[in-house]
């Protein structure tokens, strides 16, 4: 078993390197982080040249990647612009745990910036995931058992509408309804943006209150897709012979469902969670943008818009590593759930 784990982890290394090269090249061949530096005007030419030199952005792209990967503390760099490298580089590189300093929030490391936001994202995404799974399990199982019944059609149609909606649509519509109009109508209303009201402070109740709308929006669009998936998995299972046999034995529907069908449908559900968990770390770009939730999704889009390579690389690599680990865990759970699967 431990050899299996070790082998999987070793296999992941080239994978992660491919991913990092892919994203790095994409990012560095897009915009110029020094063009406006977030300001309203173009950066002065002298400053731009100086910063490119100091931040290493004037190097060829493969050198930038190498510096990112293994650091530049083994070379001299030219800081004062006289063409003679005189200062020892200070970056240690990703392989030694240094993702570099942000190009936007200079002086703060990418790791620091990411870890500040990670808890916020998890605080929003974990409850969302739980709600989505609970509801979509119920819906999925129900509509599988009553395939083509009127209720299945209604639930299917409803879930399809949710699935077919862009999330910003639901997010903004619910914000205008529950936050703006409810207030206008004198009804109890929900807050619009942020994680808490700064006038009240960061209390648990405030955070929960501010989580309602984002969770609602994300649930509406995701429950549908998931329940469809669970429905199809259940359908597959209940069309199996042993289920017929179980019914033939005269077992109650409940017993068949719990004892046989759900059990066998659990592997695909584990797969689903395995796929989801790493992406939970990435947060939800659109939802977080609309509701002003200070999570990873917004961090990503903010820093991507200024081509902050260290932070964007950091986020994507974090997700990639999480994907690798969660795939491994998923496979281990398979083996545990289904004794027929063995890893050597």
């Amino acid at each position, binding site marked *: 078993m431990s050899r299996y784990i070790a082998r999987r982890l070793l296999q992941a290394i080239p994978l992660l390197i491919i991913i990092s090269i892919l994203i790095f090249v994409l990012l560095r061949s897009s915009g110029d982080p020094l063009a406006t530096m977030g300001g309203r005007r173009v950066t002065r030419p002298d400053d731009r040249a*100086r910063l490119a030199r100091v931040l290493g952005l004037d190097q060829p792209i493969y050198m930038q990647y190498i510096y990112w990967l293994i650091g530049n503390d083994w070379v001299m760099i030219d800081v004062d612009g006289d063409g003679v490298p005189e200062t020892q580089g200070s970056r240690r590189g990703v392989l030694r745990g240094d993702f570099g*300093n942000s190009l936007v929030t200079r002086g703060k490391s990418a790791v620091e910036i990411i870890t500040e936001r990670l808890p916020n994202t998890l*605080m929003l995404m974990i409850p969302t995931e739980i709600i989505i799974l609970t509801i979509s399990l119920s819906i999925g199982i129900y509509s599988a058992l009553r395939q083509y019944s009127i209720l299945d059609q209604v639930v299917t149609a409803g879930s399809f509408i949710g699935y077919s909606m862009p999330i910003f649509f639901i997010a903004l519509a619910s*914000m205008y309804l529950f936050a703006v109009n409810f207030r206008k109508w004198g009804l109890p209303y929900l807050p619009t943006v942020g994680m808490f009201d700064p*006038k009240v*402070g*960061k*209390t648990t109740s405030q955070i929960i209150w501010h989580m309602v709308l984002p969770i609602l929006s994300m649930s509406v669009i995701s429950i549908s897709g998931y329940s469809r998936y669970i429905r199809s998995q259940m359908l597959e299972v209940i069309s199996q012979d042993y289920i017929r046999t179980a019914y033939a034995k005269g077992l109650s529907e409940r017993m068949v469902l719990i004892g046989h069908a759900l059990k066998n449908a659990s592997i695909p559900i584990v797969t689903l969670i395995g796929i989801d968990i790493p992406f939970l770390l990435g947060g939800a770009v659109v939802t977080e943008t*609309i509701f002003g939730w200070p999570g990873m999704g917004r961090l990503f889009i903010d820093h991507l818009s200024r081509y902050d390579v260290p932070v964007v690389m950091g986020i994507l690599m974090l997700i990639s590593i999480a994907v690798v680990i969660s795939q491994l865990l998923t496979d281990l759970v398979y083996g545990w759930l289904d004794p027929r699967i063995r890893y050597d």
Partner: protein
Amino acid sequence: MSFKRTIWIGLLLLTMISLVLAGCARATEEPVAPPPEDTEPAPPPTEAPPAEPKIITIAWTQEPDTLNQAYSAMWYSWATTAVWHCWPWQYDENNEPYPHMLTEMPTVSADGLVITMNLRDDITWSDGTPITADDFVFTHEMIINPANAVDSTYPYDYFEISAPDAQTVVMTFEEPFTPWMSNLWQGVLKPKHVLQPVFDSEGTLDEAEWNLAPTVSCGPFVFDEWESGSFIRFVKNENYWGGEPKLDAVVFQFVPDDAAQTAAALAGDVDIAFWPPYEDIPAFRDAGLNIVTQASGYNEGWYFNMREMASPGVKDLVVRKAIAMSLDRASNTAIRLGVVKPVKTFFDAIPAFVDPTLEPWPYDPEAAKQLLEDAGYVDSDGDGIREDLDGNPLTLTQGNTTKEERLNYQAVAQQQLLEVGIDLQILSYDADILFGSFSDAGPAAIGDLDIMQWSDAPAFPDPDTDYWLCSEMPSEEYPWGYNYFFCDETLDALFKKQLVTVDADERAAVFHEISRYMHENVYWLGIWEDPDVWIVNPRLSGYLFSGVTPFFNIMDWDVVE
């Protein structure tokens, strides 16, 4: 009950419990921060229960990158400085300068080479340490030291600084530097007693804690907390040398989406919104919110590219004149609901520097057609687009950033030009792509576009700009240059002349000439004025805005419930 189901329920429960725990932990860890304890021996108030703290929330669509102005080019960082920092001189609601940390406005020697500031003797940092000329000298040193990767050394590398005594700062230039007033000491002053030790031990200020948490500063409020992605809170500076602020705290809350900002302002969740989409203005009016517009020097305009790679059409003055007369800019401004004015020159926001005899180009498509007709641009193949004498169609490319207002305006302009027979190909780019360097093949730098549109300001409230200088042309050797337009020797000479013309009237006269020259040659075509627009909840009182230092009188702001 099956074994696996138990596992399932167990897993769910575990997650929920950990979640609740996480939530509680955060809640207990971070209670509502009270205003910091008074370090001075101010006796605690004995009478009456404390009133509800007065806190205002300002919606900020972009999160500052850092608060140290030497390291930031962001307006959204710089604009906060009047709240928590101090400027030697600030600007009032008429954009007039007044001395703030100084006993009087700085004096300039007759040759324009020496500028002297006399500091007040009662100014202190928020920890009680006096602010002296040494702090200015230290700040200057830090900015020009290559060990610090600051965003801009301009214009600190133009002068040497000395401090004859604790209250006197003397800046000596090699050449006169006329636009000093709008370029110097804008929220960059650094507390030497805090940062000198950091620099000595780390060899750079790049990673100083103060950059992100300037707990020692000199404004009416002082930094309290910055939660990434969420807010920055400044609380009342109990040691403020300029008086006692009426508010207890000012919170900048980050609301990245325009529509969400509008919703938050309408719902009253934020007290101030900034720069909302113009189309939302009626909604704010209906909701009884106050709308304040304040000239900031910025103008949206068309920049014409007349370098060799540009289309021949745009290099022809006749065509540029025809364009100026084909665009119905007055009605375009009507899109903007009467909030802003049309604009005729790049320097409009500083009227003293604009030739008063200039008249904006009239909207007269018929005259434009005639002009083109007379110059030989006729539509010979009947496709609605004129051709020049060689038979090349009058097709021009125009590009701007992806801001929604610009995209909408592009469509309008395209149509208006088509009516006189000019074909406008419209393009749009992300700002960091549009302004990419010459070596990155940025569309502006390599001259892909004949006409470019964006909003910019001269060194407000001073008209200095170096956009059109011949030395700023981008090239292989100088990839960062930002004169994307052309090199005009006459204009270049005028711009260089204004920089060293010390006498204010004479300098204004040079600018009259510049503004007339640029106007008559249609080198820049104003589309609309681009002022700061503030949406203010009526529960605030005493607020004023300046186009230079937005929160210059934040000390007098109050909440009227």
